[in-house]
């Protein structure tokens, strides 16, 4: 649960946006799609741990 997580994800997103534009300008749309997909997987892996921590916190706090 930290602010670093948000900046990490934003950095990955901006990097992927630039790569995406570069690759699609040079006519490699398929590679651009692969880059986007892999970045999505990486970012999801980052977030999923935090979400599971949040759900554990909610479960403990509210006795669900």
């Amino acid at each position, binding site marked *: 649960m930290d602010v670093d997580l948000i900046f990490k994800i934003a950095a990955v997103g901006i990097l992927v946006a630039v790569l*995406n534009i570069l690759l699609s300008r040079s006519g490699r749309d398929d590679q651009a799609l692969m880059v986007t997909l892999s970045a999505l997987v990486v970012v999801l892996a980052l977030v999923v741990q935090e979400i599971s*921590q949040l759900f554990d916190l909610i479960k403990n*706090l*509210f006795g669900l």
Partner: protein
Amino acid sequence: MELIIKATVIGVAGAILTLIIKKTNPEISTVLTLAVCTVIAGLTLKAFSSVKEVLELVEVGTGFSSAYTAPVLKCVGIGITARLGSDICKDSGQAAVASSVEICGAVCALYVSLPLIKTLLRMIGELA
């Protein structure tokens, strides 16, 4: 209370970063929104745990049964979870998924409060 300032800063920074990414990668911007929500909700709920301690103190002091307060707390948890989930679905343009999550939340809240309703009905039965 620096928590509210923290939450505001995280929220605004996250919103601006989301706007930057949204043009080219809408899917990553949704994940970023999810991360912002998770971080802010985590901060908030950590602060709420001290409120819960006071609630437990009140329960112990007044002898008020936790059978009455537990469903209320559970409903709050279900409401927070369902609302966050449905709003994230709505933000990514899936209104149907959002409303199904909301319906699930309502049903879960009803299910959790069933013991309370049963107790109330039994009480009315004893009075009549």
